[in-house]
């Protein structure tokens, strides 16, 4: 079993003391990020990217990439854990994937069962996280073997599929989501062209030759954008925290939530696999499923533990599932995974089918560290849930300016130019105005990350076909991908015309 051998190697890397430390810091910060309203998983990961870059600067490239990814992935799934805490205790979700948790979680807290709800959420997340990882281990190799047979035409179509999927579910208006995607792709063309070496849209400004730095734009759009929003709209919650009380769930609670956790894990994993559909959708689907499955659905909304266990498991499983297309195909399916991909590219590690052969340290180290990270999260969350609840009480007048300062520090530390700092501030402004008018930001980031690869693959394919565009339609796999891409865009449109409510994924 070569997979198990690789996994063992991965554990060897993940168990190195500095990587254990990185995983710990990652999940700790991630939980804090999830708990704090105002910074979601996307801005959390974006904000920490430059910090990890400077932390790992002394190591060799391979190790640095592994350690940085271990930390950043820890933030990602840690935030998924932490988001439930505020939903349950404050009735304000820390991020969009735990919106559903408020429905029953807050009711449970009001009945004095906050501890049980929190610990079930933690247990559910743990089970789901481990389930997603086991599936990841066994799917990674076959999927990347399959992807090795892809030519440039197939890759182009597959990436187009990813972009269409994210745009189709991207926000309230598909037109706006598509505009953001195309805008992101256009921004990616600035700089020296990879294929021919010709400068494009640089206007002899030396900073532009490398292209716009992904990191600057991501931190600006997400972290600063959200900060500006909080400053302007003053949505600082000053609600009363509910006391946590007894933490351990009763045997009855465990028995009731075992099946929802199992269902939520499986459902969430498969939803996470799909590009575009992320943790938010997974938690919605799981809640609906649990309500349909239940013998007495009228209990839902009044503090049913199934309504916490199912969605919380499925959003964690989805964040694990979302790692699969990222690692094996090199195609991120959501905003957060796009940022993780940006981090990988920063270390010159190209995610995709070759990742497992070229950089086994990074790929398997990351997978193994996710096992350990999930274990740490469970160990952290059960006893320390009261401490994390205290983080919510961080005075916002200290928190908000500090986020700006961290963003500035992070970008400067990596780029060392004033140009990038100015770009950062204006991206923050842009991020605020766009997102407050229902322009989703995730497609823009996705376009920015995928832009160069889409273009290269398109041009390679067209070069082999002497400029004949039908190459994308004559290759069977490519045709299937393009067909799916078209369906992702057309089906929501048809549903909308028929007046049906389309579930959308606001932020992943």
């Amino acid at each position: 079993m070569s997979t198990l051998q690789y996994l063992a190697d991965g554990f060897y890397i993940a168990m190195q003391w500095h990587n254990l430390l990185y995983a710990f810091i990652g999940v700790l910060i991630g939980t804090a990020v999830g708990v704090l309203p105002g910074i979601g998983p996307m801005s959390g990961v974006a904000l920490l990217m430059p910090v990890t870059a400077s932390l790992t600067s002394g190591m060799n490239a391979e190790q640095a990439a592994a350690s940085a990814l271990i930390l950043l992935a820890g933030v990602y799934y840690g935030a998924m854990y932490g988001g439930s805490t505020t939903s349950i205790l404050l009735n304000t979700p820390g991020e969009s994937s735990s919106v559903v948790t408020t429905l029953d979680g807050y009711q449970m807290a009001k009945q004095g069962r906050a501890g049980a709800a929190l610990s079930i959420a933690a247990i559910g997340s743990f089970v789901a996280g481990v389930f997603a990882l086991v599936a990841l281990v066994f799917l990674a190799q076959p999927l990347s073997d399959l992807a090795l047979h892809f030519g440039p035409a197939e890759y182009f179509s597959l990436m187009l599929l990813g972009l269409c999927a994210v745009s189709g579910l991207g926000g309230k208006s598909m037109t706006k989501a598509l505009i953001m995607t195309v805008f992101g792709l256009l921004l990616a063309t600035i700089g020296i062209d990879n294929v021919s070496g010709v400068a494009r849209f640089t206007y002899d400004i030396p900073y532009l030759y490398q292209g716009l730095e992904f990191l600057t734009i991501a931190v600006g759009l997400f972290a600063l954008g959200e900060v500006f929003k909080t400053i302007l709209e003053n949505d600082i919650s000053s609600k009363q925290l509910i006391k946590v009380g007894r933490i351990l769930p009763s045997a009855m609670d465990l028995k009731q939530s075992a099946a929802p956790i199992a269902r939520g894990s499986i459902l969430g994993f498969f939803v996470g696999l799909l590009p575009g559909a992320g943790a938010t959708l997974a938690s919605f689907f799981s809640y609906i499923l649990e309500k349909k499955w239940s013998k007495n659905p009228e209990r839902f909304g009044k503090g049913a533990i199934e309504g916490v266990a199912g969605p919380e498991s499925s959003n964690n499983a989805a964040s694990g599932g979302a790692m699969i297309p990222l690692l094996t195909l090199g195609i991120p399916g959501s905003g957060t995974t796009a940022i993780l991909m940006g981090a990988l590219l920063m270390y010159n590690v190209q995610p995709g089918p070759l990742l497992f052969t070229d950089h086994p340290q990074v790929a398997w180290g990351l997978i193994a560290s996710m096992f350990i990270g999930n274990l740490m999260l469970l160990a952290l969350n059960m006893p320390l849930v009261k401490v994390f609840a205290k983080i919510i009480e961080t005075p916002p007048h200290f928190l908000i300016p500090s986020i700006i300062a961290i963003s500035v520090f992070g970008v400067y530390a990596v780029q060392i130019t004033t140009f990038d700092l100015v770009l950062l501030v204006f991206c923050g402004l842009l991020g605020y105005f766009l997102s407050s008018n229902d322009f989703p930001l995730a497609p823009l980031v996705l376009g920015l990350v995928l832009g160069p690869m889409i273009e290269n693959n398109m041009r390679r394919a067209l070069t082999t076909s002497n400029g004949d565009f039908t190459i994308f339609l004559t290759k069977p796999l490519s045709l299937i991908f393009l067909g799916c891409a078209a369906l992702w865009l057309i089906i929501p449109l048809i549903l909308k015309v028929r007046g049906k409510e389309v579930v959308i994924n606001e932020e992943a």
Partner: protein
Amino acid sequence: MNKAFDRYSSVCFALVGALFVIESRNISTSAYGSEVGPNLFPMGLGIILIILSLRLFWESTRARTESSTATEGKTLQYKRFLVIFAATLLYVYLLEPVGYVITTFLFLFVTFKVMGSKSYIKTTFVAFAFSAGVYYVYVHLLQGTLPGFPVWLGF
């Protein structure tokens, strides 16, 4: 949903698209022997962006007049925002000439106050701890690069 914003932004995006289309015609053709040059991709995208902007414009004029529920009942704190935004811009521009510790301390002190921090002692303490702490850890422990103290201070 803010219709006016949608309309203006659709015009802006259409202009951006047009800019990319026009400018991509000026990209020099390379010696690389291919029928697809470096201008094809941005030009195609620019055209798509213009089409999408037209659609957004059309959508925004067609949409029924819904009262914007999102902004209602919320008073936007423009003054506070503008002060912090100006402070951020100043911070960014002065970071290199004046150095990290001084600018960060001043920036944090001002913005903490604007955001409603009451006690002077606490504000000073947190701002100082943040700026000096980050500088010490990053520059001395991690050997990173941050603009130090300005030369004219004499140390």
